[in-house]
């Protein structure tokens, strides 16, 4: 399954990078005479409400999805690893303070806080990334804190401390590396999560604004043409589902590979 996942992700990356060469059409070019036309030999996925080629737009949308995924996962994981390892390593009041903030952010279900933040900050790609990072780091912090609580008692960490290594050095060189396998799994699944969340926000009109082709925004506009042009809904949605499935397969496979104890159990 993880190979299928890796293949899906690879194909998407290729589509995102080489998109302009894979389709003869410009994702922004309008052919108003052909608007809402279904899939044909020339336009594989058909045309949208402004006569733009949906295949070219889906390829172009892959860039937005991957960009959001990479930035959100990078920002959230760095903040989460930093705060989580500080909380776990030092314990006491620092841990108490960080854990309370984590508890409060976790008190908002899933996307709700992101919806709230984008609602007040205004819909844009930057604000989507910001909102998703604000809620994203919490999961990493929790994970890393738990791992650090265990690894700070390990012999090689104690030895480094006894040898007089500085705290930042112990954290960066000895403690944090022990958390990386778990973080890698979470980051892979997090890519899927961030892509799904961006699409959801864009679908609600709170994310990437037109004319930028985002899969969620395309679905939002497709909703108005469900009766006369369902291909507006079918193809961008399929792209989201397949890419998210790819990251989920990959994440599941990595978890099995990195933690044999969960193999076959987590399903």
């Amino acid at each position, binding site marked *: 399954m993880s190979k299928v996942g890796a293949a899906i992700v690879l194909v998407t990356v290729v589509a995102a990078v080489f998109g302009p060469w894979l389709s003869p059409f410009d994702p922004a070019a309008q052919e108003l005479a052909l608007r809402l036309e279904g899939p044909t030999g020339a336009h594989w996925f058909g045309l949208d409400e402004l006569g733009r080629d949906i295949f070219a737009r889906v390829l172009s949308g892959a860039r937005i999805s991957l960009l959001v995924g990479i930035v959100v996962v990078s920002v959230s994981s760095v903040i989460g690893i930093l705060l989580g390892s500080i909380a776990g390593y030092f314990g006491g009041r620092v841990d108490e303070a960080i854990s309370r903030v984590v508890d409060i952010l976790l008190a908002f279900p899933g996307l709700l806080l992101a919806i*709230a933040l984008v609602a007040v900050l205004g819909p844009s790609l930057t604000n989507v990334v910001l909102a998703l990072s604000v809620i994203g780091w919490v999961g990493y912090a929790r994970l890393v804190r738990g791992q650090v609580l265990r690894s700070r008692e390990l012999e090689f960490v104690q030895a480094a401390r006894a040898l007089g290594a500085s705290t930042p050095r112990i954290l960066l060189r000895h403690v944090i590396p022990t958390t990386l396998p778990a973080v890698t799994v979470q980051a892979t699944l997090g890519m899927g999560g961030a892509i*799904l969340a961006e699409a959801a926000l864009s679908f609600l009109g709170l994310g990437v604004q037109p004319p930028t082709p985002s899969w969620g925004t395309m679905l939002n506009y497709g909703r108005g043409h469900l009766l006369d042009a369902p291909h507006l809904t079918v193809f961008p949605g399929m792209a989201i589902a397949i890419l*998210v499935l790819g990251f989920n397969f990959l994440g599941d496979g990595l978890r099995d590979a990195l933690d044999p104890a969960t193999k076959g159990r*987590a399903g």
Partner: protein
Amino acid sequence: MLRYLTRRLALTIPVLLGVATLVFALIHLIPGDPAQAMLGEEASEEDVQALRVRLGLDQPLLQQYGGFLRGAVRGDLGRSLRTDEPVTQAILDRLPATLELAAAAMIVSIGVALPLGIIAAVGRGTFVDHAATTLALTGVSIPNFWLGPLLALVFAVELGWLPVSGRGTVGHLILPAISLGAALAAILARMTRASLLEELREPYVQAARARGVSRTRAVLRHAFRNSLIPVVTLIGLQFGAVLTGAVITETIFAWPGIGRLLIQSIGFRDYPLVQGCILFIAVTYVGMNLLTDLVYGVLDPRIRYE
């Protein structure tokens, strides 16, 4: 037990305070002047000033915060800017619709997930298991904002069996419930499978198997009941995901619940109503998690909060 209950309840208070503080802060995160942002660029200075006074934005920040908290405790979340209706009333009016949808989605997902999880666990490693597991992973990956329109396309537009949108009959409920419940069904099926497999390794199940009890019987008569504890917990914890999913599902199917109210209020920049909806959903979620933890404590006597 009593100590566990008290500690768990005491832990909820700072979380609720934090949630309320964040929701209060939202209005101050609006870039520029919040009152101007709500009324738009063309609004006159008098109107903007009047709104500032009405929302208390002219008062010192601490006073605003105190007023917000006092109001929230009393259930007074201000008035809608657009309709002048009390925010609490607007939310309570939509609550039955959201609860109906959430309950239906949970019934759909439990009805699909438990049999799927059991089948996968009983036939572990076989084709059936792989098929069920793949189906579950696919269910998690399909966004409900895609599944919803697709279901509407097939069952409402093409086949004409069910209404496309709105609320009223049981028929109206089916497509939104499936579209909202699919992801939860996938998560629950995975959990049921994992939990059952865990339970099947327990000595009492092994003993039953050694006595010649068939695997299917061992699963259904012995392991299944105990494996339900983590599944029940997960159902409770996933309630929040259902509430957030409802925001999207209600928007797709024009379902007159709190989620749709939230999205509409965002469109109208009716921020008191936005704050009210967010606060209401978050507090319900915290309450549901608390309830889940308490039930968990009762179900499994080994669990005590230390």
